[in-house]
């Protein structure tokens, strides 16, 4: 089953791009491909002008790309700090560190800093993530991506399961991320949200890009039209 | 909100834990063994003893316990009964160790391995308990006051005689044995082999059933496949005999191939009545148990002790079954 057929996508530094499309358009697949989870059958990825291969999540990370997945990809039994540092644990110094001993206090300290700076409050930072609300979990996932990303953050439907107040938090987070100089690629099918934060909008339909729009130049109807195929822009 | 659910969660934990611990306490205190002994032995001058079987659910040892309990009652001794789930040294050891901790006046034990059980039994002996070995024995039996067992070699020979008569004095015969290293069954197999060769039978060998009826059954089926002209089988213990009969039944050779089994448990007696097994060599486990208690009491009272006692056996067939009812093994006392 082909999710993508010659899909195109681009994002520039320091901008928020919304990637929209109807269900089955291929948005998640495209993002997972760029995040290194899937491998494309064909095509080219250019990163800062260079052609790159992103064969694994590690390779995406090395380029400075981080992702907040739709399912959050958090380990429910571990605490927020452990999740933040998953795969990137801080080890103690010296010989003990070489044996693999973790520096838990350091990780907790840095995690507390990251959470506070992004406005996420946690009652008990040693409790497993499973005991936290959806919004807090989202916060942890976003913190993780934002803390480690140096270039691009992909966010796949970050507000799909959240309430009004929590959604507000996430949108504020996206803005503060952009202010830090990173790019954000936001997948969403929620038009009002898109129009609140996005600089540009790229539309995917049936696995291909059908439109590249500047948010200030278009209306929601235009975008929906492009999604459903009523309006075609890209050749 | 989360803190209350945590508190409630703790309450459940506490309740369940307490219930668990109390249940164990009740079980331990309130249990009344049907074999007459609670923990701690009788008061006054009564002696305390424990009989440790080779395996728990085996009617041979249950019958031994019945005989021992009767004798114990006569002599004013309180007797406990314990045993492992499987006839195995790794499983019998923790039980011997626990019994040793009680420091009973005497321990009657059927060691599951001639070598491996030496250390734990020695430990019990060093702690002051008199040791009587029943049924099986140890390579180094110097730590025991007395050893009581059937003359297993003689029993094996008797089985060879009986089988020879059943199959008309000639033909292929095979042995289903238990495990190597068990003094009793090894002696039976040796006795049978000698007796069979003397009687002019064609002895084709033996295999080990690991004391599992299912294994014995599959061994018999394989041997039959290789030797369709097999005439007779000798099974050296209860589980092996059970399994051998099942194997023959499944191969459709019941009655054709004659089985002589060792031990007369209820199932084997049934098999005998139904003609699935043609003869049973029964030991006298009740007698072994009673003698064990007697000798232990003698040792404790500084009276003369018989170091080795060999008990006899009875050859039971369908014909003489009625006369030998008291030689049959019991499933409970």
């Amino acid at each position, binding site marked *: 089953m082909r999710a993508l057929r010659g899909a195109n996508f681009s994002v520039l530094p320091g901008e928020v791009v919304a990637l929209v499309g109807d269900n089955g358009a291929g948005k998640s697949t495209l993002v997972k491909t760029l*995040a290194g989870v899937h491998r494309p059958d064909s095509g080219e990825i250019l990163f800062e002008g260079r052609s790159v291969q992103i064969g*694994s*999540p590690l390779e995406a990370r090395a380029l400075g790309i981080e992702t907040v997945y739709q*399912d*959050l*990809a958090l*380990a*429910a*039994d*571990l605490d927020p700090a*452990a999740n933040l540092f*998953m*795969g990137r*644990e801080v080890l103690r110094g010296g010989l003990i560190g070489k044996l693999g001993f*973790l520096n*838990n*206090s350091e990780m*907790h300290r840095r*995690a*507390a800093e990251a959470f*506070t700076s992004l406005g*996420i*409050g946690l009652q008990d*930072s040693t409790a497993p993530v499973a005991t936290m609300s959806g919004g*807090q979990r989202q916060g942890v996932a976003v913190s993780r991506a934002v803390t480690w990303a140096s270039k691009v953050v992909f966010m796949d439907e970050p507000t799909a399961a959240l309430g*009004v*107040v929590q959604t507000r*938090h996430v949108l504020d987070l996206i803005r503060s991320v952009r202010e830090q100089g990173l790019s954000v690629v936001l997948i969403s099918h929620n038009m009002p949200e898109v129009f609140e934060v996005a600089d540009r909008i790229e539309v995917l339909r049936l696995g291909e890009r059908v439109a590249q729009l500047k948010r200030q130049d278009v209306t929601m109807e235009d975008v929906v039209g492009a999604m459903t195929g009523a309006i075609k822009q890209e050749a | 909100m989360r803190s209350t*659910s*945590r508190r409630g*969660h703790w309450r*459940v934990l506490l309740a369940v834990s*307490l219930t*668990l611990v109390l*249940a164990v306490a009740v*079980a*331990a*205190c309130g*249990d009344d063994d049907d074999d007459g*002994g609670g*923990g*701690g032995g009788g008061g006054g001058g009564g002696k305390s003893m424990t009989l440790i079987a080779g395996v728990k659910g085996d009617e041979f040892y249950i019958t031994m316990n019945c005989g021992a309990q009767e004798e114990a009652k006569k002599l004013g001794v309180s007797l*406990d009964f314990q*045993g492992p789930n499987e006839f195995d040294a*790794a499983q019998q*050891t*923790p*039980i011997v*160790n*626990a019994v*040793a*901790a*009680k*420091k009973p006046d005497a321990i009657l034990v059927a060691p599951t391995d001639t070598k*491996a059980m030496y*250390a*734990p039994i020695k430990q019990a002996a060093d702690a002051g308990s008199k040791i009587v070995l029943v049924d099986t024995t140890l390579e180094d039996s110097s730590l025991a006051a007395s050893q009581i067992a059937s003359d297993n070699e003689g029993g094996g020979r008797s089985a060879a005689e009986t089988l020879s008569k059943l199959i008309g004095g000639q033909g292929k015969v095979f042995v289903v044995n238990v*495990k*190597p290293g068990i003094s009793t069954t090894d002696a039976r197999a040796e006795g049978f082999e000698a007796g069979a060769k003397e009687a002019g039978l064609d002895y084709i060998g033996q295999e*080990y059933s690991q004391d599992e009826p299912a294994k014995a059954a599959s061994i018999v089926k394989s041997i039959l496949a290789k030797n369709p002209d097999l005439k007779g089988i000798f099974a050296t213990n209860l589980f092996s005999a059970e399994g051998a009969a099942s194997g023959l039944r499944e191969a459709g050779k019941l009655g054709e191939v004659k089985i002589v089994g060792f031990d007369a448990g209820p199932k084997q007696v049934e098999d005998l009545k139904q003609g699935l097994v043609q003869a049973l060599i029964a030991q006298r486990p009740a007698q072994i148990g009673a003698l064990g208690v007697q000798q232990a009491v003698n040792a404790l009272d500084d009276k003369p002790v018989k170091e080795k006692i060999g008990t006899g056996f009875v050859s039971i067939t369908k014909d003489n079954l009625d006369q030998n009812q008291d030689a049959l093994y019991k499933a409970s006392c």
Partner: protein
Amino acid sequence: MSTATTPDEALPDEEVQPRPPWWQRFVTGSSTWIGLILVGLILVFSTLEYDSFVSASNARNVATDAAVLLVLAVGMTFVIVTAGIDLSVGAVLVFSGVISARLMNAVGGNDWGTILIGLAGALGAGLAWGTLNGFLIAKAKIPALIVTLGTLGMALGGALLITGGVDEREVPFKLIDTIGIGRVFDQIPYLVIIAFTVAIVFGVVLAATRFGRNTYAIGSNEEAARRAGINVDRHLVKVYALAGTLSGLAGFMNLARFGTTTIGGHNTDNLQAIAAVVIGGTSLFGGVGTVLGSVFGVFIPAVLQNGFVITGVQPFWQQVAVGAVLIGAVYLDQLRRRSQHQR
């Protein structure tokens, strides 16, 4: 716009709470309750039969009887924390013992050199089976239950083939005399020291190293671990290899203790090890558990059996009791999970 206050709205600018001190984390840990149950059982039996139950020799015996299972349970803890399972541990124990005995007899002699060769053989055999398990589970993607059931059969069958179904009963006497029944300071058996050393070392690995952390991560959410860049396949191979190697060590210890390979006596070791790990608070669904809990989980059935025999309880009650404790432990785990996921 909603006017109701939710916990989230109340918190946005609050600082993250600092981490509770270590003793508080210990008390609320999952293994603490099981430890209390163990203490409770010990108290009950001590009260009922003080003279017999409470003695150095009895404690020594219980610990020695539990030592081999403890080593198996440590390996099993790692496996179950990854949400896996290993049914082959008893069979690998037996196979390793057989290889070890054969090697030592082939080399001959009654000195430490021979014994070390035997140890190497046992560990190597265990490592081989464990690596095979890990490879089939991680790379070939066959479910752990099936793979380890298969290696159970192969290892046990292999042991029977090599020995012809007859236990190896010739073991260098020095091995039995020193490690098997020897004691340090004439008090603590070597077997107990080995078992507890293994428990401490690997307990620390699981709790405080990256290897342990990755084990929890994979058990909690394997896909998330993959996406976080953890090499899940390689880690799983290592975890099963560890379980196998520890089974090999257990086989060597068993050989030292009994002087024979006891082929027929380890058929339920796998279930006993799993029960011990689960009783100790490790979740079969992965992501949760400690080696300390498994230590308690090994000693609860051991103390139960010892206490029941001493107090004269019918042997069959022991099995009933252990089964009940096991179900209780799993039920508690379910309760805890449900209360966590209420949000």
